[in-house]
């Protein structure tokens, strides 16, 4: 390393990092510590009483069938949400790369939805998927009982998965387009000369070469599906019907913010954090291994 690239003095780098550290401490570490403390106590909403209960809050959640139902909903939501996001984004990126001339235009158009907030999208899609008005309302009038997201848990889950994929596809698309463009043109040209069609090149050259990026977007989507899907569920289904879309992120909100069950909700938050940490750890290990193999 060049010495000129180093900061002067011991405190300069620290001072430069301070604003960011302060923000993280204020909005992440402090709430996390507070949540950890609450999760070991029974606390009243207004804070005038609290009693230490050890792991009772955790044990209660871990014994509750509704916790596992929520965990299952989260798994279904994450699996299909991530799957749909990555696959659709990959196909879009591939098609944009196939047609270079119009690709530039579509690249911009497909990035746009990234600017739409989850809650805004949720409101729009809730109206769009209403069983009484719009397209679905028409289908219901032709075929009564066809679309019942207020009763049918699978349909409600489809709705929130669709909305989630919508929010994730633009980001995945940007990453995957960049990845596809970084594949040396020689490989593709050589394969084309050997007679490989676009699909064959996609499966045998492009996908293997962008595997790290695919893994990266899948991990980012997974973490987002666990932690950042609150707005969509809140605006579209409120966890219903019958708890079918009551994913963990929403259950935490419901128990803590609607129900003022600060203790139970904190215990759930900590469990969720462990889940995200595990997902991040897997990603980290896999990346390390990959980097070593390439080195």
């Amino acid at each position, binding site marked *: 390393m060049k010495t000129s690239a180093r900061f002067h003095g011991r405190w300069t780098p620290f001072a430069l990092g301070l604003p960011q550290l302060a923000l993280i401490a204020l909005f992440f570490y402090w709430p996390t510590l507070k949540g950890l403390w609450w999760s070991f106590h*029974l*606390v*009243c*909403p*207004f*804070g*005038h*009483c609290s*009693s230490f*209960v050890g792991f009772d809050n955790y044990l*209660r959640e871990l014994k509750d069938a*509704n916790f596992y139902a929520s965990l299952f909903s989260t798994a279904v939501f994450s699996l299909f949400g991530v799957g749909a996001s990555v696959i659709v984004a990959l196909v879009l990126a591939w098609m944009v790369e196939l047609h270079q001339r119009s690709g530039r235009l579509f690249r911009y158009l497909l990035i746009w939805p990234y600017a739409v907030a989850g809650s805004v999208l949720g409101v729009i899609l809730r109206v769009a998927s*209403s*069983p*009484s*008005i719009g397209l679905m309302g028409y289908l219901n009038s032709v075929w009564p009982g066809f679309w019942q997201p*207020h*009763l*049918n*848990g699978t349909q409600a889950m489809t709705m929130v998965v669709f909305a989630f994929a919508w929010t994730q596809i633009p980001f995945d698309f940007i990453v995957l387009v960049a990845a596809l463009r970084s594949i040396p043109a020689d490989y593709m040209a050589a394969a084309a000369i050997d007679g490989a069609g676009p699909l064959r090149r996609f499966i045998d050259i492009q996908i293997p070469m962008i595997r790290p990026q695919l893994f990266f977007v899948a991990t980012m989507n997974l973490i987002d599906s666990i932690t950042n899907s609150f707005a969509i569920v809140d605006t579209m289904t409120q*966890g*219903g*019907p*019958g*708890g079918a879309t*009551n994913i963990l992120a929403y259950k935490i909100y*419901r*128990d803590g*913010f*609607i*129900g*003022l*069950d600060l*203790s*139970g909700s904190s215990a759930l938050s900590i469990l969720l954090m462990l889940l995200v940490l595990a997902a991040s750890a897997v990603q980290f290990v896999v990346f390390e291994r990959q980097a070593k193999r390439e080195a």
Partner: protein
Amino acid sequence: MTLRAAGLWFAWMLSACVAAIPAIGRAAAFEFWYAHGGLYAQTINELCAGFNKTYPQDHVRCLPQGTYEQTMRKAVAAYRADQQPAVVEIYDIGTADMMRSGAIYPVDALMKDTGHPTDDADYLDSIRRFYATPDGRLLSQPFGTSTLVLYANRKKLAAAGINELPQTWEAFGQALQALKAHGESCPAVADYTPWKMLEQINAVQGAPIASANNGHDGLAARYDFADGIHLRYMRDVLRWHAQGLLLPAILTHANDQTLAFADGECAMVIDATGAYAIVAKAGMVDAEVGPLPVYAGTTRYGNTIGGSSLWVFKGETPAVYSAVARFLAYLREPQQQLFFSARTGYLPLTHNAEQKLASSPSTEPDAIRVGLASMALPGNPYNAGVRLGFMSLFRLIWQEEVQRALAGRESMDDALINAQARGNLLLERFQATYRASTAGAP
């Protein structure tokens, strides 16, 4: 140069301080957080403006905080951060938490301390009983108060050959069939919420929801509703739902039960008296209002209420509390009650206001007349609403289980048994949370 600048700065500071002195000495300013929007918020703002005009030395800032749930949540956060307003509007089911919060200045004590003692006996019985502690104290001031009534579209009922409002659930069921047979696509609409389908129905039938007087007697209460009248009613609801007689609000174009009735889409709805403002504003002239039906051959008890009351937080100065007391007394004046009531369909709160209203019946909306009459009937220990912990979570659990039953994923019997069992776990935890507490009321 610098000396002159410093002098100027000093003079400016001094004048600012002098200018501020009368403001400090004069106005006792405080905040009131309320939980309404639209027409209701407008009316509350007019009440606030009226108070500020009548008492120029006081100043109340009335700030909307969203829904009941959001307002409660913000009040908790604000109190924990020592930023609480002086007065906050909290919904009915927040009462159990507020009473035990240790964060409040009980309204009865406040009024006595500031020289505005109130005669609690003047409150309508069902309202006073809903909010009173076991020893009869009122720690908050009742505010937006509603009860459930039956709204029917007279023209549609007449067309189907029904000439009087159903008084029993049996007659209600027959009316639904008749309306359907007459080609009505939405005989009745419901949002399937427990305030309407559990709390109010059981109150008017005098049937228990929980032990210990529905929780009024203390923390040991446990749910007890999964059989009896609630099961009977919910089995009927399930049948009406399956036959397309009682539509979920989401299946209407209005996507809201009150609006679906008000715009003429649905023929009947069981709704709060507070919905009257919306029905009237929509220009519906055929709306007829009757009391909530009961089962044939059962006793009808006085109905209970829902809505909100006003709580005063700790942490203000005596001068502010004097102003707060004047504000609460102002809101409690009969003419303010009646102004609020006429605009919104919320009920008058005191006998005093009720008598004023009765003496000029032409201005009295139907919903209020019917609501007050249905509340005035004799009671029993179970018709004063519930006082239970984690009630907002319980309502969500009830909805979750009932949704499963409506979707055919479990029987209605099992849904209610599950809701009761899950509710009891909440009550156990609520009891454990507050058992160690020394703060607040019993």
